[in-house]
């Protein structure tokens, strides 16, 4: 009798915990039990390694809103979990949730993971949410990821502001809509932004101790 009671109590507490987590995460109420459990598994795994679980729930809700199959939703949530982890690692040491989300978005459109690390190196103390968004937009527009990343990272290193990076993306988008080749538009607009930035410091004759 005692064992049975303990078993029931453990079942009840497990269910309560499950419900509590689901409510905190606000998974769409129309999700069926199977999907709810699958998403919760991903959420628990993400929480365990410090990833923002809200983004996983949002992805699941997106799939539900778009009436995707439970399997497709589960796959998308799992894939996003992996991208978030990669983004978090590449944007170390202390990326914000917005940065991790933007990084995962960039990875989704095909930006190679090491580029995120280079961008962090260029802006170690500033939020990368917008530069990553700009890069994502350029790549989604059809620009080669490495070329777009090179331009954005160079501009960041030269001291470009968020507004200048945003203007770059808008200008390229307008040019492409007007019929320009994406790479030509990017080169032209990047030169335009570059001309507004302070010049790079001149190389010092004493920077290389091996040379006399």
């Amino acid at each position, binding site marked *: 009798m005692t064992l049975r009671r303990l078993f029931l109590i453990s079942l009840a507490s497990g269910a309560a915990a499950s419900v509590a987590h689901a409510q905190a995460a*606000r998974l769409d109420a129309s999700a069926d039990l199977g999907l709810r459990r699958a998403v919760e598994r991903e959420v628990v795994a993400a929480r365990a390694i410090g990833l923002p679980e809200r983004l996983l729930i*949002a992805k699941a*809700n*997106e*799939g*539900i*809103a*778009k009436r*995707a199959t439970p399997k*497709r*939703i589960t*796959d*998308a949530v799992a*894939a996003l979990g992996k991208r978030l982890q990669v983004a978090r690692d590449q944007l170390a040491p202390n990326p914000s949730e*917005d940065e991790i*989300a*933007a990084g995962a*978005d960039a990875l*989704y*459109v095909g930006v190679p993971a090491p580029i995120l690390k280079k961008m962090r190196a260029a802006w170690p103390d500033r*939020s990368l*949410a*917008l530069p*990553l*968004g*700009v890069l*994502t*937009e350029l790549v*989604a*527009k059809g620009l080669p990821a490495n070329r777009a990343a090179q331009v954005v990272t160079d501009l960041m290193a030269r001291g470009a502001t*968020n*507004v200048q*990076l*945003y203007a770059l*993306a808008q200008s390229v*988008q307008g040019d492409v*809509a007007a019929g320009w080749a994406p790479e030509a538009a990017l080169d032209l607009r990047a030169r335009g932004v570059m001309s507004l930035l302070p010049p790079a410091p001149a190389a010092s004759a004493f920077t290389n101790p091996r040379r006399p």
Partner: protein
Amino acid sequence: MRGPAAVCLLFAAHVAAAQAPDEIRMEAGVASLRQAGNTSRGAGVLGVTWRRSRERVVTTASGSLTSARDSTGTAVGLLAARYQFARFPKWRVETGISGAVFGLTSLRGGGTAALFTRVQRAHGPGGLWAGASSGTTNRFGHNMQSSSLDAGAWGEFGRTSATVTGVMTRSYDTDLMAASSLPSRRPVGAFVVRDATLTLQQSFAALDLLAIGTVRAGEGVATRVNDRAMTFAAAFYLSPVAALTVSSGRQLADPLRALPDSKFLSVSLRILLLRRDPTVLRIDRYGAIAFVRRSPDGGAVLTLRVLANSSARVEAYGTFSDWQPVPMQWVLDAWELQVPLPTGPHRVAVRVNGSQWRAPANLTRVTDEFGGEAGLVVVP
């Protein structure tokens, strides 16, 4: 009925050809009508609506025919225009004329014409209005005057919209009122009826539900009668250009439109025959655009604008709404939604009349893991 019907359709065709319409709709169906004190009759219903939208002026004309056995029939026409002031964009003036010829079982044949005007003041997703109407009904040479004052308010709350209307009507159309349940005997002199109406509409993905409830207090000579009526309607969108509509309920006698008190059940198919705005010509994108304005507090406001017809149902969703559809609002001449967004990338999409979600035309389009698409917005 053939003469007036032909005139009505010819008039609609002439107006349509001359004014280069933005939209022509046709609705055809069947109905069961039962006027007070009579048995039910099957009827055919055919209606045509023409509409033209310009920057500040919207004009519309419509004609409809209802024909039942036992020579019950009505041809109704409406011509109206709405003007929006450039300096006071929240204010609009609407005016028009309506007319009908009829041969009703419970009444004698005749015709009616009415003028109406209304002033509207929009406020956010709702507004207020006040208006007046005046008309004459003629039956075999006898003219009977009617006039009304109306005021009301409307509002939209998410996917629900509500309208409250108060109307006071004074009418000498004793034939019409005597044929209704208000009152049961024919008095001498004018009737005064006061109506309070609540209209509720709820939109779902491809379904609109409508409920209208009216409470009427009326008084004739030494007669006072209270009455009430309910109407329910549903429109199911089969595609962006076709909808199946079902409606049922009771219509209280309307002296200005010469409509008798009747119960009805109708099923009809509404088809969009022509639409020249981008909704149909560029159905893949709806002529939707998105732009971002920075706000002083460091964030930004995303404005979505969709060039669809004002009668369409336009929604947006995206990361900002956790992918829950948000109804857009009709502002000036387009559908609009403003959303405050934090810095960073976001995704949005729009749809018209429950069809496929699409990225606004000026945004970079990205496909998602679920086979859909959205526009990428980067907020500085």
